[in-house]
Every structure is written in C-alpha cells, then in structure tokens.
C-alpha cells in the first residue's frame, strides 16, 4: 500500500532521514518507534506531503505522491500537537473540515463518544490540551479512509478516552484499514501493534513483529528490548 524508497531529508545541517526504504503492505497496525529526533514525524509528514524530501520516492497504491494532493482524500491524519485556529469554535472547525473535504462524516457519534457536546460552541483557544486532543481525534476518525496516520495519539488523554481511542483503532483495524502510529508508550504498542518499524538515526533499524524484536534483543519486555537496542548503539 505504501512504498517508500531511499528517502532522504535534511533540515539545514541535520540529516534527519538517511535513505529510508519501507514497504507497508496494508491492513493492520504499524507502530513507528524510535528515540526523539529519529525522524518519525518527518517520515509521516513526508507521506502526507507536508515535508518535501531531498530525494527518494513515496508511492501509495503504486502512484507517486510527488506534487499531488488528491491522494490525501484517502488519508486521515492526527497531528502530534493539536493546534487549531484559535478564533474558531469547535463546531465551526468540524464544519469547516467537513466542508473542505466534502466526504461523508460520522462526527456526531464521535462527539458523543468523547463527550464534547458542551464544548461545541467554545473557541478552540479556550480549550484545555486534553479537550483539544479529543477534537483532534474527532477530526481524524470522522472520515472513512483506508489509511490512518496517528502521531502520538495518546497525548493528554484521560484513561476513559484512552480506552475509547483503543476501541476506535481496533474497530478501524477490523475494517481492514492500515494504521500508522508513532508513540512512546510501549504498553500501547504491545497491546495494539501488529508490526513495529524502528527508526534510528534516520534509518530503519528494525521492521517486524513485537516478538521478533524481543527475540532479536534477547529481552522479554518491549521497553527493555528497545533500551537494549539504544544502549548497544551508543556503545
């Protein structure tokens, strides 16, 4: 479904992606892991066309995305930090995105699910971080797209909402969708992810299942497995 070939990206002097090649064949949850600054978000944004790589190619369903925009109709994206125009109300924001995408949306269910009804007429600038993240989730999950990209979806969520989020992700997976997630919460990865893509210093260090990763690093626990990888690298 997604085919990334030798992707390179440099921000000024910092080489963030150093020839990333990756194939994600579709269906299932893929966790993109890596330490801070390993290029997770850059990789995701490249797929979305927000970051323009120096070289390499990205294909979705065998079509290059370079200079295109229409393919984003098939992607739902949850940005890492929920930042919205502060003058708009929640209601207006949702309306606006619906209007811009002109696709069918089940926003009402999600609003009910996350209990956002009382905030609908509040300006986004006045909302707490957690509430903003809920709005963010509504915007992401309200469309029915085959590819979901979630950048740190758990940030700022209370436990109840976290459970709702997990349910949502599972439901999407059951519907046969491809879901890319970046996160630092290993527990979340262990319970949710089908496969792990581990980025390190701009390269793909490991791609495989959780168990394969544990085996490779000789650890029983994912957190330790990753820690081992990182310390080994540093030695």
């Amino acid at each position: 479904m997604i085919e990334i070939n030798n992707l390179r990206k440099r921000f000024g002097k910092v080489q963030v992606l150093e020839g990333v090649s990756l194939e994600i064949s579709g269906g299932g949850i893929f966790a993109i892991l890596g330490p801070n600054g390993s290029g997770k978000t850059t990789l995701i944004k490249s797929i979305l066309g927000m970051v323009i790589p120096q070289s390499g190619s990205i294909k979705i369903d065998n079509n290059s995305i370079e200079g295109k925009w229409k393919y984003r109709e098939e992607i739902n994206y949850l940005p890492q930090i929920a930042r919205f125009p502060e003058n708009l109300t929640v209601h207006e924001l949702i309306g606006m995105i619906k209007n811009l995408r002109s696709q069918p949306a089940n926003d009402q269910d999600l609003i009910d699910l996350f209990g956002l009804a009382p905030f609908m007429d509040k300006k986004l600038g006045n909302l707490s971080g957690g509430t903003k993240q809920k709005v963010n989730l509504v915007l992401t999950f309200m469309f029915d797209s085959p590819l979901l990209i979630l950048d740190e979806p758990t940030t700022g969520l209370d436990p109840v909402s976290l459970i709702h989020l997990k349910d949502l992700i599972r439901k999407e997976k059951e519907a046969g969708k491809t879901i890319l997630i970046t996160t630092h919460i290993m527990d979340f990865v262990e319970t949710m992810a089908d496969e792990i893509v581990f980025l390190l210093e701009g390269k793909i260090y490991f791609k495989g299942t959780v168990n394969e990763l544990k085996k490779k690093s000789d650890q029983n626990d994912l957190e330790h497995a990753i820690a081992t990888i990182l310390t080994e690298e540093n030695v």
Partner: protein
Amino acid sequence: MFKILQYSFYDLVRSRWSYVYFAFYLVLGFALLFLNSSVSKSVITLMNIIIVLTPMIGTIFGVMYFYSAREFTELLLAQPIKRSTIFLGQYLGVALSLTLSLVLGLGVPFMVYGVFQSSEIWNFGLLLISGSFLTFIFVAIASNIALKHENKIKGFGYAIFIWLFMAVIYDGLFLISLVVFNDYPLDKFSLIVTMLNPIDLSRILILLKLDISALLGYTGAVFQKFFGTNTGMFASIGVLLIWTGIPVYFINRISAKKDF
C-alpha cells in the same frame, strides 16, 4: 481556493485587529473631515497617511497573520487541498479583509460628508485604489517573508525593514542620487526608479491628480509625456499590477518547496 479564502477572511474579519484597523480609519476619516472642514483638504492629508500606513499595516498584519495561521495551515496541509490553493486563499483572505477595512473605514465618513456630491470623488476613489494596491502588494511581500523565515522575530524585523526601506530610505537614496547626478539628464532615470518602488508609484498616481500643476512645471520631454497625457496613469496602474503579481508568484514558489 474560495473556501480557504472564505475561512481566512471570516477568521480575520472576526479578529480584534480587523476592527481596530477599521475603527482607526473610521476615526481618522471623521477627524480629518471635522478638522479640515473641506473634503479636498482631507483628501490631500489622507494621501500622505495612506501612502505610508497601508504598506506598514499590510506588512505587519501580513506577517502576523501568516505566523499565527501556522496551525490552520498545518491542519489544511493534511487535507486533500492543493498547496498553492491554501496559500493563495490565505493571502487573498488577509488582503481582502484589510482592503475592506480601509475602504469601509474611510468610505463611510467621506460618504457622510458628501464625497459623492463633491468633485473630489475621483481623487478619493484613486486614493482608495492606491491604498488597496499597496495592501495587496505588501501583504504579498509579508507572506513571502513569513514563509521564508520560521523565526518570528526575524520575520517581523525583515518586514519592518522592508517597509521602512520602501517608504523612507528608498526615497532618501533616490533624492541623493538625483542631486549628485544633477548634471545628467535624469527624467528617464527618475521615472524608472519610481516604477521600482510601489509606494512611489502609488504616490505618483495620486500626484497626477492632486499636483498636476506642479508636475507640468518640469521641462523634460519624457516627464511631459508621462504626466501630460494618460500614459502616466495607465503605466502606473500597469506596473502596480505587475508589482502585485510578482510577490504572489513567489508565494506560490516558496510555499511549494516549504516543509511543515
């Protein structure tokens, strides 16, 4: 593009700053008319203000908007919308809302004081056209600055500098070069240099109406042709259009390559 324009426009129209800007012009208009008691005198005073102020507000507001709309932009970039559409839409939204504040803010007081019945209507109209052009040009320049520089402080600094340069320093250098090269024929040179600065250009456009008597005092044949016929008017408006087009083209170019 229209949808983006619409959202940017509404976003701005509801922001405090648009009201401040609108109210400023409203107060300015009424104050001028009240103090001067003659529409023609007010138009002249207003010209001095518009030439300096619209570019300044355009740059500052433009830079401010593009920095503060960063979230909005990122939100839109993840949606199935063409990049150029997003940026041009936002640009037009800002430029239009500022222009609207200008036209309404000044239009209302002058209408109340009967500019439509006055012979000043053409001068006043020209003033608003120049002001609008300057707004569009300088918002576009500001957008370029904001797109080029992530650092807000730097961006603001450049924006203010560009305004100061165009509005004051440029004319200073221009004047010095005219005085220094006094012995050479300078009329072509001075027309070209004028064309290269949109603020000077709009000033000339208004001078053609307000100070034609003085402009015709200069003997140069090129000046005479430029000021004495409609050439000046058409050439100025033409070049102002080019001046609007170039930075808009660069908005497109820079935004196409930018990472978010």
